[in-house]
């Protein structure tokens, strides 16, 4: 499968990545080879087959809507790259 610059730009934007020119060129070749190989699936007739997301039936698991964990804010925030007054800090997003 031929992967174009536009495709790489599109999928890297979806994956929130910026690639260098060198990375882009390598990605075009690699993704082309890999997707080309993936297309061997098309040899298989899957007409009428139901797509299966899990190998055995999983039922939704319900529980009572009660809080079981305590206040763990400081602990959870301990890994934040930037924090302030008990909150995560991000750049200003709304003018």
């Amino acid at each position: 499968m031929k992967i174009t610059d536009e495709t790489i730009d599109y999928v890297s934007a979806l994956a929130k990545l910026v690639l260098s020119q060198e990375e882009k060129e390598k990605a075009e070749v690699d993704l082309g080879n890999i997707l080309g190989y993936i297309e061997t699936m098309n040899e298989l007739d899957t007409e009428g087959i139901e797509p299966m997301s899990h190998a055995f039936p999983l039922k939704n698991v319900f529980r009572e809507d009660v809080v079981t964990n305590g206040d763990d804010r400081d602990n959870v925030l301990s890994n934040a790259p930037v924090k302030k007054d008990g909150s995560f800090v991000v750049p200003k997003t709304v003018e």
Partner: protein
Amino acid sequence: MDITTLTALELSAKIKDGEISVVEATKAQIERIKKEDQKYNCYVTVLEEEALARAQQVQALIDAGELKDSPLAGVPMAIKDNMCTKGALTTCSSKILGNFKPPYNATVVEKLEAAGAIIIGKLNMDEFAMGSTTETSFYGPTKNPWNVEHVPGGSSGGAAAAVAAEEAFYTLGSDTGGSIRQPSSFCGVTGIKPTYGTVSRYGLIAYASSLDQIGPIARNVSDCVAALEVISGYDKKDSTSVDTGEYKYTDALVDDVKGMKIGIPRGYIGKGLDEEVKNSILKAAKVLEEKGAIVEEFDMDIVDYAIPAYYVIASAEASSNLSRFDGVKYGYRTEDFNGLQDVYKKTRSEGFGMEVKRRMMIGAFVLSSGYYDAYYNKALKVKALIKEGFDKAFSKYDVILGPTAPSTALKIGENLSDPLKMYLGDIYTVSVNLAGLPAISLPCGMDSKGLPIGLQLIGKHFGEKDIIRAAYSFEQTREYVRPTFTKGE
């Protein structure tokens, strides 16, 4: 006596008898790591202080008559670096989690601690478990203890190599497409990938959630089974956890395969399989046959399509799971940015390695509008057919036998530049994950280069006991072989 050469169960017996103290065992293990690990690079983090403090606590518990029912109490062990350990670095072998200290423990860690395990460190892996060689780790490749010019396999390469190098008595790995079994095969040790839903995934940093499963790696079947008993069980924190009510796997440690029906898929011993590996696998099948098993070959051609289906599904789930790494809540954040979108993009581009980026892009592609049906939905249909193929096989056989990998351990660097070639090495392992089945890899021979060969036994859903019985029976016919610890050094 050299403590670190003992098996996990031998050590725990000596601890219970008072012949060796937990502190003594822990010190011996850490000394060995300090001496040897610069050669192999199995560990990302060694938790020396924590382990020694814990060793004293566990010894006190044992002295007080507690932990009697814990066969692995006091035994030093280590965990792949994608399982959360409260307050202890958990990197996934990635730059993006280079400073991450989880605020909670994975369920398997809680279970190990309750059973008196001494966690001595976190093990190297392919970044985010994406790879089959442990070369994609941000912290450098792990090397095979049998020959340091070769890879240990992956993604749980550190976990398998540490067991072979006697840098841990047993370890936990995770298996999404073969990541416990293939490195176990390459390093000459035993690893179990349990049925999906057997071991809680709570606190396992997700790669492909519908395929990921945690399992043990050890120097023999009995040690593996003891560890599996500790970590398995229903967990309400994992919504895909299945309550089977039956986790007493040691009952299956029986040297008897009389009447057991074993099937060998012809596709597993055909084209693409190294001749020496093939001979070794067929010899192992013969051994089981001589012990009374009924062995026959059969066709299951659908598994030829397992690799393409696997890479579509795994990459799709990875692209979704890894979107959480955004430089806001934990982990690495880029230093120089202009607005929130820039934080995301730069953090991720600087924080992830190339293999991870590649899989996220494949995932984004196969899920994107216009391609979703042709790739993702198609893969889910192929998955349904693979499951059907195994269901049919297990209506005739108790266990499916084949190689774990098409060759023995590759040389470092051999496949790194060609991802597709690396993916094709997963041919005998990925279908097991797609179908959610249990499987074990155990050593069955050596090739002419002196590298170990792995035998894979696959069971039906929750059929762990069948594969354990077959593996244990085979193991009784063969001595455990230690690496010589000299080659390539």
